[in-house]
């Protein structure tokens, strides 16, 4: 029948760009680095297939320590972003009046539209020994001489939370906005205290938003590059930096790919675990705008 032919044709027309995008730009490249990660270099322009790069990774504590460090700092950043972002999201979604709500939301978004680099640069200007904060503290007389606030892990965490907290707030706001005030009223009406209502109604209701926010924040943190590099101190190592080093400084694409694959596997595992523990699924959480 003519109509179903037209349907099929339009399906094919819509499917083609999608498949080209997904296959050529996402799947094949991932397979590509997967393949490359199993190439061991045995001499100039000579490679054999093997797991040497992975062995190398495992046998070198620096590498997996860096991965673990990246992971736990990312988790820390995620938790902090959640704790810092939740009250803000709650305020925007549930307390602010309609008009100020839009304004606050916009205010939250503005840093999002400025590149990572500018943000990190801003922190540097603020925190360096000759920076604004140090200067301000001195002029107030709180400290005698200049203090270095840059180049340590706390700075990195502050900077990272700063970069990602918006990605926590956005899904939280959109979930919490969907929560009818009458649920809260019912919670109180049935005898709940502020705390019970929060624990038994608000948090479970916001769970999809929490999970979505956490996933995005975790991935962004683990995959960030500029902030830990520019704000990090003498000891700070970030796994993406390792990947960059392998690719650019060492021009060792094989082990760079290995690191890439490992980072991907590792973050996916964390995300998967998070989804499992909270009983959510990827499509429904992340895709909810």
């Amino acid at each position, binding site marked *: 029948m003519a109509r179903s032919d037209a349907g099929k044709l339009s*399906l094919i027309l819509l499917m083609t*760009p*999608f498949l080209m*995008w*997904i296959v050529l*730009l*996402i*799947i094949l*490249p*991932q397979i*590509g*680095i997967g*393949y*490359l990660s199993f190439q061991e270099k045995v001499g100039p322009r000579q490679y054999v297939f093997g797991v040497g790069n992975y062995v190398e990774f495992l046998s070198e504590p620096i590498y997996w320590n860096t991965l673990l460090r990246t992971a736990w700092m990312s988790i820390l950043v995620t938790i902090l972003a959640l704790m810092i972002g939740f*009250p803000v999201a709650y305020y925007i979604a*549930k*307390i602010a009046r309609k008009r100020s709500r*839009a304004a606050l939301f*916009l*205010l939250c978004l*503005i*840093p*999002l*539209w*400025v*590149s*990572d*680099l*500018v*943000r990190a*640069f*801003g922190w540097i*200007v*603020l925190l*360096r020994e*000759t*920076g604004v904060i140090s200067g301000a503290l001195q002029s107030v007389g709180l400290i005698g001489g200049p203090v270095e606030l840059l180049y340590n892990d706390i700075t990195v965490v502050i900077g990272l939370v*700063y970069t990602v907290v918006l990605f926590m707030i956005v899904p939280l706001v959109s979930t919490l906005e969907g929560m009818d*005030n009458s649920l*809260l*009223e019912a919670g109180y009406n049935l005898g709940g205290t*502020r705390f019970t209502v929060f624990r038994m109604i608000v948090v479970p209701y916001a769970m999809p938003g929490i999970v979505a926010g956490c996933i995005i924040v975790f*991935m*962004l943190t*683990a*995959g*960030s*590059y*500029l902030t830990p590099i520019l704000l990090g101190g003498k000891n700070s190592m970030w796994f*993406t930096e390792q*990947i*960059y080093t392998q*690719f650019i400084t060492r021009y060792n694409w094989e082990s760079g790919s290995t690191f*890439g694959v490992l980072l*991907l596997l590792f973050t996916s595992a964390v995300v998967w675990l998070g989804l499992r523990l909270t009983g959510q699924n*990827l*499509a429904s959480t*992340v*895709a909810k*705008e």
Partner: protein
Amino acid sequence: MNVAAPQSRFLRATYSGYLVLFFIYLAAPLVAAGVFAFNDSTFSALPWKGFTLDWFFGTTDPKVGMFHDRRLLRGMGNSLYIGVIVAALSVVVGTCNAFLFERKEFPFKSVLYILMVLPLVIPGVILGISILVFASMVANGVENGTGIDLGFLRPGLFLVIIGQFSFLTTITSLVIAARLRKFDVALEEAALNLGATRVRVLATITLPYLAPALFSAFIVGFLISFENFNTTLMLVGSDAPLTITMYDRMVKVGSTPVLNAVSFFLMVGSGLLALISVLAQRQRADD
């Protein structure tokens, strides 16, 4: 009474205090970065040496303003060029995807849907290297096999565009699909019923309805492309976009307040764009 709000005066004050602190936290580095664009010093640091616009309009060394700095201008040009192309491409493909997933039924739909959102959770650096590696493998294969050099598969504008496109498309698809989901198919049926052809329905009903989403997807795509660093870093060739130019300047040459000036300029620019896109969304909330 809003039951969601804290009732005691003390809690309310604490809450407001917290929010104020939070927004100060959000604004501080941007304000700092912006303010030093006007400092009459070659360092973006205290002390304050007076107000100047040289870092925007200055023409003489050492204070060459951003509008006379050829490399920064070229970087900005590249960023604009890349941003417009990437945003346009990803809006087009995103629209197709939105129709595909909202309107069509086909086997393995849910699996493919997960594939569609997947790029969101792949770190940008990995997208960058994987596209770099894959493009090089193809280019090397072709070159070794036929001797033809597919130059566009080497780091450069094309790969940067492809790399940014690869994850931006997910975002535009989601934005457009969300709008399309709210679209009542009955509107299309009504138009058909009133005698319109399918093409006419698309042109007069569906696309006008989607227009605000297409517009804000474009803006969002453009801004994200403009500020992207992680993916671009791995794919950039000789035509570096602005973020890369700035980064190179910062770590390889040394930062002068001209970088603050660029930052300030970018903040104002993207702030305006964001505002426009929010206004467009506001309008769409009205209808």
